[in-house]
């Protein structure tokens, strides 16, 4: 399971304040804490309301990489900010994200190729988020085909079927799970799959429980990666246990302690 730490996002007040003050310390702390907790990537998002998003993204990427080597998932809809992030990034970044819209694909995929980055592709287009699994998979297929045109391997694509808050759009969750099953059949080697996990529990009570339960269900459907709160110990325990139940790791009585120890750095 590829874990993408969600915390360096301007939607969080501490991050927004750090960005406004250009104070590296909170960013450093979040980068280190998430890396220690087992993150393979760190999602970095400037937040919606910043001036000069390009400068902010470049600063965030450099600031994170001052303290950790963990690659960054550059999370922005602004192509210029994305390019600034890619230019500042050391190592192999993950772009978050393109959609299935042709204009988006033609803007983002060349950048992925140029910088050797991997890409998250959202299963949506100009018409919005599809209602069912088949339409999501159809868009995913278009993204796979477009990536192929640009010489990007399916293994460097992370397709996100887009989970919506269960408190708002309950009917989407089963469709997302079905999409995860279908997407694996689109290419050989198959594209990877990813979800922005915390979205499922927006506006719900018991957020951590909703996240945990959905993650276990999604892993059973073959989910490869998730953007999530890697510092949520209960959630990480679910990852470790699901790896055992899916026979990806050999069971032993101390499996949980070992997983926790590994994540404690």
């Amino acid at each position, binding site marked *: 399971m590829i874990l993408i730490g969600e915390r360096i996002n301007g939607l969080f007040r501490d991050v927004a304040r750090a960005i406004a003050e250009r104070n590296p310390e909170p960013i450093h702390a979040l980068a280190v804490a998430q890396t220690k907790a087992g993150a393979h990537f760190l999602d970095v998002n400037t937040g919606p309301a910043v001036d000069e998003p390009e400068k902010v993204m470049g600063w965030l990427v450099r600031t994170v990489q001052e303290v950790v080597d963990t690659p960054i998932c550059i999370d922005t809809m602004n192509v210029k900010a994305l390019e600034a992030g890619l230019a500042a990034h050391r190592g192999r970044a993950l772009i978050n994200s393109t959609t299935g819209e042709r204009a988006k694909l033609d803007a983002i995929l060349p950048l992925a190729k140029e910088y050797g980055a991997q890409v998250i592709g959202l299963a949506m287009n100009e018409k919005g988020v599809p209602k069912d699994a088949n339409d999501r998979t159809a868009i995913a297929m278009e993204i796979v085909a477009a990536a192929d045109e640009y010489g990007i391997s399916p293994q460097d694509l992370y397709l996100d079927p887009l989970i919506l808050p269960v408190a708002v759009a309950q009917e989407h969750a089963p469709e997302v799970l079905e999409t995860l099953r279908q997407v694996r059949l689109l290419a050989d080697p198959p594209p990877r799959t990813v979800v922005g996990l915390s979205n499922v529990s927006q506006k719900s009570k018991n957020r951590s429980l909703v996240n945990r339960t959905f993650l276990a269900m999604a892993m059973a459907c073959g989910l490869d990666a998730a953007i999530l709160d890697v510092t949520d110990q209960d959630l990480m325990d679910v990852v470790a246990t699901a790896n055992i139940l899916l026979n990806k*790791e*050999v069971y*032993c*009585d*101390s499996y949980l302690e070992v997983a926790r120890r590994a994540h404690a750095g």
Partner: protein
Amino acid sequence: MEVLKEHWTGKVREVAIGATRERGGTRTHTVTVGGETGLPFLHFEGEVPNPPRIAMEIWDTSPEEWPEALREPWADVLGDPAAWARKCVDKCGADLVMLRLASCDPDRGNTGPAEAQAVVKSVLSAVGVPLIVIGCGDPEKDNEVVPAVGEAAAGENCLIGIAKQENYKSLVATCMVNGHNIIAQSPLDINIAKQLNILITEMGLAPERIVIDPMSGALGYGIEYCYSIMERVRLGSLQGDKMLAMPVIVFVGQEAWRAKEAREPDETAPGWGPQRARGVAWELLTATTLLQAGADIFVMRHPDAALALRRHIDELLMREEGVA
């Protein structure tokens, strides 16, 4: 035709056994096992940086229960562990010597720690190869004798055993204090193999100091099951499971010469061919099967079986170089 290859991310850890003078021991050389990055002998997928090694088994007493066919080649050295060890190195080119402290068994000689220390010291001064030492298998007695042996051989970086899930602490402690490696035995159980490795590392012994004994059986006695356990250990290693990524030791001679097919004398099994050839063949075929399963250290008893195994390993490795 294109060969489809697996790309593994993990590898088996390397364990170094023995210490030369520069490292505080008295061995003339050291032996490193493990380090494989693919399945056994799939040379196109991974590397075998260290060849499988042969350890010859010797006892601190004359093994009366060994069949005559097995006692005969050692007739002049039985009961003299130092001379026996020398013969293993001189006649069989043993990479390691594996000393079994059989005489401390309460049902046998019931000898104590002092005798065991003396035997180990005599074997260490008789040969320059690294040493493997195991107790008699009685947990209480092993906890008394093996730590004393660890102390007597301090700094020699031996491989010491046998630790089990129910009985590992005093053995691991002596390895930590005196600088040895440990044999971690599990009863044909991958889950316990992993658990025991975790328990041992939790005590503070480095994972690079553990060798797995998955408990092999002989040909005809559940060897298929051993094979699948060992295969799973290797697959776990290659998939990045760090608590399974240890090299494997197999006690081939012990198992093969326990088999009826190896022990039955000529008179009672006239249709089976001469016992001597039968026993050697049983030991050799058990070893070659476990070689394909991924074992790193082979503890052998009969010199002819050991020498034939050596030729077989050399051929497999040569072929590997030829193709790769």
